[in-house]
């Protein structure tokens, strides 16, 4: 005969449940809080270490390798300015098919750079802000490893670029704040570094986030002016309102580099990321060499990169400009400025004899075009979100009533007098 067990009181059951919940909670918390103790792997390699995407042209020939996630719609501009759009992506095979859109004509940017006198390109002698989001990135042949959490070889490369910009008379500031680990939060941490840089230094002429790539070294190897150097890839984030303006800034740098050191800029990639580029319309990622490139080769290319950056940012190489003037080579330019109308003096270079628009007009056209599109897209997105919220949260009658009394209800307190 079964003896019925005495039922547990409600309090006992509750206490047991509470103890179990408390144990589960403590366990979950311990796991979550101990997660950061696990070292994070550097680089975003796919599937297996060293994997990367291969971009293919219409005929199936490889265009470039990218240690980035690529999507349909991403854009790629090759060294010879051929413009491609990714039409399909094979995630298993890590290949992306592209469609050829045409050849980009950088001659207007070259003409603009040539017509701008020193320090007038951005209207003032601004400062170039530099930092490394992935401070751990390093170069295996020189540093012995691809990742150094305490600070990798990439910081030395960034320092070389900074020094080279300063040697040319530009203003540059490098912040070496460590953003380890190389995880999804790295860009959130580097955004803070960037914000502090912007608060302490200004006006900002350009922002450069210096990285190194993770594809085979031969993709970046080049010989320029008889010297073994590494090429540089420019990466632009498509997911921010400054994307178009940043693309135009990249074109300027490429135009300057193509003129002074052809082959230096490997290519330009416009992907889906943000990369903190919403902060400035002159903000770029520079991929300097790969993990397999000897750091010395990358450092050797930095003075050449500084030439291009100074030309694009300041409209010339400040020190070179002074030197030329001292030697009397700048007389022609000075005469041209004297002939310009008084309102143009000291503000913009004189219009070109060919009747092209003034430099200031070109500058506004270039910046305004990209940023204008950014503003329009941002407003469209905000309006769409607000409209979606209204549709979800209210019926048609309620919507009408709320719209009718919106300002009275939301801002009513501002009109009220204290009783």
């Amino acid at each position: 005969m079964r003896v019925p067990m005495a039922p547990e009181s409600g309090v006992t059951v509750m206490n047991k449940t509470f103890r179990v919940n408390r144990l589960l909670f403590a366990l979950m918390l311990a796991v979550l809080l101990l997660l950061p103790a696990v070292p994070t792997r550097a680089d975003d390699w796919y599937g297996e270490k060293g994997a990367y995407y291969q971009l293919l042209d219409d005929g199936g020939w490889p265009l470039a390798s990218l240690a980035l996630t690529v999507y349909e719609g991403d854009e790629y501009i090759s060294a010879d300015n051929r413009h491609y759009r990714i039409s399909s992506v094979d995630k298993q095979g890590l290949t992306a098919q592209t469609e050829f859109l045409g050849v980009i004509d950088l001659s207007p940017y070259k003409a603009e750079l040539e017509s701008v006198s020193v320090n007038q390109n951005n209207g003032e002698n601004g400062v170039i802000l530099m930092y490394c989001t992935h401070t751990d990135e390093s170069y295996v042949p020189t540093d012995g490893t691809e990742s150094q959490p305490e600070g990798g070889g990439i910081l030395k490369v960034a320092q070389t670029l900074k020094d080279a910009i300063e040697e040319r008379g530009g203003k540059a500031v490098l912040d070496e704040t460590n953003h380890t680990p190389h995880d999804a939060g790295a860009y959130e941490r580097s955004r803070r570094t960037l914000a502090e840089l912007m608060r302490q230094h200004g006006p900002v002429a350009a922002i450069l986030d210096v990285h190194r790539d993770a594809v085979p070294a031969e993709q970046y190897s080049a010989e320029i002016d008889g010297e073994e150097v590494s090429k540089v890839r420019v990466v632009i984030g498509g997911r921010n309102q400054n994307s178009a303006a940043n693309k135009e800034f990249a074109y300027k740098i490429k135009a300057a580099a193509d003129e002074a050191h052809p082959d230096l800029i490997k290519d330009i990639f416009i992907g889906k990321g943000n990369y903190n580029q919403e902060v400035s319309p002159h903000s770029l990622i520079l991929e300097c060499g790969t993990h397999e490139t000897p750091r010395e080769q990358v450092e050797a290319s930095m003075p050449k990169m500084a030439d291009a950056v100074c030309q694009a940012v300041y409209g010339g190489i400040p020190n070179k400009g002074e030197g030329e003037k001292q030697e009397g080579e700048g007389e022609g330019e000075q005469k041209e400025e004297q002939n310009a109308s008084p309102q143009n003096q000291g503000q913009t270079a004189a219009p070109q004899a060919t009747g092209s628009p003034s430099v200031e007009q070109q500058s506004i056209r270039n910046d305004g075009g990209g940023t204008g599109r950014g503003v329009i897209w941002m407003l469209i997105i905000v309006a769409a979100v607000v409209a979606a919220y209204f549709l979800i949260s209210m019926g048609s009658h309620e919507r009408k009533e709320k719209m009718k009394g919106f300002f009275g209800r939301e801002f009513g307190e501002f009109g009220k007098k204290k009783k």
Partner: protein
Amino acid sequence: MSLGIVILIVAVILVLFGVGHRILDRLRLNDKVALVLMIAIIGFSFVPDIPLGGGWSVNVGGALIPFGLVVYLWIKAGSTWEKIRSIIAGIISAGVVIATNMLLPAEPEALAIDPYIIYGVLAGLTAYLFGRSRRSAFMAGIMGVLLADIVRGIINGARGIPVTVRLGGAGAADAVVLSGFIAVLLAEGIGELLEKIQGGTRHKDMVFEEGEFKHAGPHGAGKRGDRHE
């Protein structure tokens, strides 16, 4: 600086200001206080971080003001249970933020949305599961990111990595502020969606008085309700 860039910067600040003001307005704050706080958050974002020593620093607009608001909301919480719930939600959100950073791909283009939006959504979901309240969501969103940054700084220090922790360093554009706002928007969105699905509010007896919903009893506003506030 060109006209286009000036317009762009102004537009970004106006959008952030407008959205932020509306969100703060939904917490236990009136229009004027919400406006002053939003001005303070944006204004102090332009002031350099305050160094705390040892590589640690804090931004007034990005961390101190949001933290002060969290403390105010916590003190004003309707019950002890709500206070406990919001602390638990904040701690779990911190764990979620840390796990998110570790488990998601390191490259931004590999994510459909930016990490700070993911923090906000997860913190909002955590808080909503715990308290179903906008205030809890806000507290969890803010504290989740702040605590995660503190834990990360401590672990880096323990591993011998140079420590630089800038709490709320990006000011109004920092993950701290944005995830707090997104968490409130999510709580609001879920609340509105559930209300629409069930065909209207279950709390028809509640009235909105002095910046919060209260049960309208025979003697006026009575028990303080924290759900959907």
